[in-house]
C-alpha cells in the first residue's frame, strides 16, 4: 500500500531528485521567458522607432535655375542689409518654378505649383546673396528645400506613394521632376541645426536638445550637491529622533509623488511667488531638482551606510576629525553608489514632461536657447508637440526626436557609468 516504506532512503532521494531537477529547469525557463519578452519588446520598440524615424534624417531638395533678378528682388545694392532684408526672394523662386513648368497659367494651379518649394528656400537665397553679393543679376542652378508634402511623397515613392495633401497635378509635377533627376534627398542638416518650426521641413531638434541639456545641467548642479549634503547630514550628523524619522518618511514619500505635482509646486513658488520667467531651463531645472532630490538622497544614504564601519573606526582611531573621516574615507567609497542614484535621477529628469508643462516649457519656441534664462523646450516636450501635429512629415520627425532623446540618454548614462567605474577603486 504505502510503497515509500518499501523504498530505501537513497531511492526516495533519487525520486525526489528528478522532481527537483524539473523544478529547477522550470525556474530557469521562466527566467529565460521573462528576459526574452524584454528583449522582444526592446527590439520591437527600436525597429518601430527607427523605421518610422529614419526618413527624417534625409530631406528632399528641388533643382531650380534661379535668376537673382535685381528688379524682381527689388534690390539695387546687394551689400545693403536693409535692402537684403526686404528682397522679394519668393518672387524669384516663383519665376524659376514658372520657367520650369511653363504650361501652368491658372491662378490656382500657380498656387499649387509654388507650394512645392518650402518657404525656407527664400531664407536660403537671402543668406546666399548676403554672403556673395556678386550673385545679383546672375542665374544659378540651385538645390532648394522642397515642401514637406513633396518630401514625404518623394521619399515614399518607391513603395506605396503617399498622396495626402497633394493633388493630381502636383503629383504629376513631382513625377516629372523626379524623372529628370531634379529631385534628390540630402542628409537633413536642418533637423540637427535649428529649432522648432511650424513647417516640418524647417523644424529641427537642436532647440529642444539644448533646452534639455541646460535644464539637466541646472538639475545636476543643484540636486547632486544638495542631495549628497543632505544624505551626509542625515547619516552622519543628525541625531536619530522623532524629527529625523519624520524627515526620513517624508523623503521616502516624496520619491513616490507624481511628477506633475512638482510642476504645480514650481508654478506656485517659482513663477507665481518669485515671479520668474516662464519656459526657461533655470526654472525647469529647479522643478526637476525638487523631483530628483529624494532619489539622490535615498541612494546616497544607502551608499554611505554601505561603507564598512571598520574604515570609519580606522580613520577615527587615527585621530581624524569627523569631517576628515567623511571627506577622506566615507565619501570616496560612497561616491560610486551616489552616482548610481544620480544617474537614475537624471534619466528620470530627462524623460520628464508633466512638471515642465506646468511651468510653460511647452511653448512653441523657434529660437535656440543660449543660456538657462532663455525660453526653451525640452526633448520629451518637443516629441509630445510633434506627435500632436497633423503634418505627415512630423510623424517621422517625432520618431527621429525619440532617437535623439534615446541617444542623449545613452550618452549621458555611458558617461556616468564610465565615471563611476573610474571612481570605483574598491581595493
Amino acid at each position, binding site marked *: 500500500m504505502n510503497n515509500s516504506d518499501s523504498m530505501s532512503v537513497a531511492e526516495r532521494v533519487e525520486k525526489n531528485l528528478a522532481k527537483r531537477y524539473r523544478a529547477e529547469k522550470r525556474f530557469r525557463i521562466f527566467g529565460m521567458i521573462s528576459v526574452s519578452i524584454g528583449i522582444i519588446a526592446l527590439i520591437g520598440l527600436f525597429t518601430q522607432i527607427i523605421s518610422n524615424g529614419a526618413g527624417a534624417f534625409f530631406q528632399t531638395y528641388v533643382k531650380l535655375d534661379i535668376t537673382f533678378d535685381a528688379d524682381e528682388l527689388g534690390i539695387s545694392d546687394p551689400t545693403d542689409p536693409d535692402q537684403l532684408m526686404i528682397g522679394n526672394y519668393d518672387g524669384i523662386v516663383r519665376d524659376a518654378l514658372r520657367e520650369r513648368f511653363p504650361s501652368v497659367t491658372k491662378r490656382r494651379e500657380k498656387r499649387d505649383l509654388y507650394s512645392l518649394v518650402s518657404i525656407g528656400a527664400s531664407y536660403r537665397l537671402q543668406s546666399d546673396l548676403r554672403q556673395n553679393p556678386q550673385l545679383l543679376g546672375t542665374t544659378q542652378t540651385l538645390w532648394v528645400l522642397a515642401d514637406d508634402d513633396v518630401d514625404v511623397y518623394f521619399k515614399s515613392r518607391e513603395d506605396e506613394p503617399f498622396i495626402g495633401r497633394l493633388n493630381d497635378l502636383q503629383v504629376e509635377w513631382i513625377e516629372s521632376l523626379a524623372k529628370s533627376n531634379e529631385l534628390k534627398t540630402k542628409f537633413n542638416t536642418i533637423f540637427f541645426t535649428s529649432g522648432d518650426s511650424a513647417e516640418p521641413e524647417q523644424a529641427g531638434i537642436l532647440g529642444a536638445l539644448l533646452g534639455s541639456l541646460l535644464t539637466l545641467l541646472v538639475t545636476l548642479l543643484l540636486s547632486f550637491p544638495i542631495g549628497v549634503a543632505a544624505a551626509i547630514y542625515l547619516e552622519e550628523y543628525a541625531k536619530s529622533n522623532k524629527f529625523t524619522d519624520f524627515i526620513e518618511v517624508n523623503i521616502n514619500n516624496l520619491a513616490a509623488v507624481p511628477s506633475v505635482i512638482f510642476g504645480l509646486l514650481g508654478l506656485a513658488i517659482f513663477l507665481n511667488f518669485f515671479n520668474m520667467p516662464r519656459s526657461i531651463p533655470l526654472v525647469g531645472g529647479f522643478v526637476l531638482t525638487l523631483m530628483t532630490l529624494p532619489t539622490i538622497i535615498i541612494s546616497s544614504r544607502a551608499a554611505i551606510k554601505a561603507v564598512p564601519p571598520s574604515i570609519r573606526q*580606522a*580613520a577615527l582611531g*587615527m*585621530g581624524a576629525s569627523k569631517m576628515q573621516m567623511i571627506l577622506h574615507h566615507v565619501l570616496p567609497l560612497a561616491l560610486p553608489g551616489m552616482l548610481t542614484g544620480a544617474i537614475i535621477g537624471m534619466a528620470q529628469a530627462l524623460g520628464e514632461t508633466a512638471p515642465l508643462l506646468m511651468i510653460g516649457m511647452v511653448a512653441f519656441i523657434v529660437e535656440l536657447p543660449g543660456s538657462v534664462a532663455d525660453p526653451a523646450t525640452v526633448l520629451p516636450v518637443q516629441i509630445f508637440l510633434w506627435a500632436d501635429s497633423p503634418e505627415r512629415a512630423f510623424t517621422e520627425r517625432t520618431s527621429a526626436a525619440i532617437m535623439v532623446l534615446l541617444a542623449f540618454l545613452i550618452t549621458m548614462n555611458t558617461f556616468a557609468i564610465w565615471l563611476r567605474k573610474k571612481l570605483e577603486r574598491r581595493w
Partner: protein
Amino acid sequence: MSDIPVSTPINPMLGDNMQQATLDDRNNIPNAGHGGHTVIEEATQDKVKATEKNKTVGKPLCDNPKIEVRDVSVFYGEKQAVFGVDLDIAKNEVIAMIGPSGCGKSTFLRCLNRMNDTVDTCRVEGSITLEGQDIYAPKLDVVPLRAKVGMVFQKPNPFPKSIYENVIYGPKIHGLASRRSEMDEIVETSLRKAGLWEEVKDRLHQPGTGLSGGQQQRLCIARTIAVSPEVILMDEPCSALDPIATAKIEELIAELSQNYTIAIVTHSMQQAARVSNRTAYFHLGKLIEVNDTQLVFTNPDHELTEAYITGRFG
C-alpha cells in the same frame, strides 16, 4: 623616578583575609621605569570566592601610572557594560585584558582613547587620566588624544589606499610632515618598526588591501605608530590571523613595548601569557583580578580567574 617606596592606599576592595605586603616589583614589571611599589599580596592560599568579593584583587594600581582609571563605569543606554573599574597602566608595560566574551574588556579598552564616543548611546562615568590629564574633560579634543593613544583593531582595516598613503595618513592629518622627504622617512621608519619594510618596500604604492591578513595588521600597526603615539591599544589584534602571522605580531608587540605602553585585549590566554607583563581579568563587566602575568596564570587569587584560565568557562 624615586626609589623611595610610595605607599599606595590599601585597596578598599580587598577583604580581611588579605594583608598588605611590600615588594619590590621591578622584576614583575620589567619595563616599568619606576622604583618600588607598595603592593598588596595575598597572604593565605585561599582563593577569593566569587560570591564574597565584588572588588578587584591583585594589584591594579601602580606608581606613576601612564593611565589612571578610577571608578569607570560604562553604560550602553540602560545597560551597564563596565562596573567601577580602578586600574593603572604603567609606562612601557604591556597589559593584557582577558575574560570571557561580553565581559566588557573591549568596551573598557575603547574608553581609553574615547572610541566609545562614536556610539550614541554609550556613556562613561568615572575618571580616566592620561599623564594626569582627564581625557573625559568636556573641553578636551579627541584628535590630539587619539594621536597620543593609537588603536589597532580586531580585523585588519587598512584604508583602501596605497601602503604609503596608509602609513602617512596620520602624520598628514596631524600636520607632522609636509615635505616629501619627511614623509618618506616616516613611512620607512614606521614600516621598519612594524617589521613590514622588507616585505613591502618595492610596492609602497600598491593597495594596502592587497597584502595578506598578517601584513595588513602590521600595516595597521605601522599606521598607528607613524604618529608616534605614547600608548597603543590593541583590540584582539590577532584574532583574524593565522598562527604564523600571530607569532610575528607578538614578536612585534614585544619589540614595541620598549618604546610604547601597550594595552591589549585578547581571547587567547597563551597570547596574554606570552606578550604581557600584567594581566587583567574581566568578568561580566567587573575587573576581577589584576596581577603580574606570571602570577595570574600560575597562581590566581580569585576563583573566577582560576576558573577561566583553567578553561571552566570562557
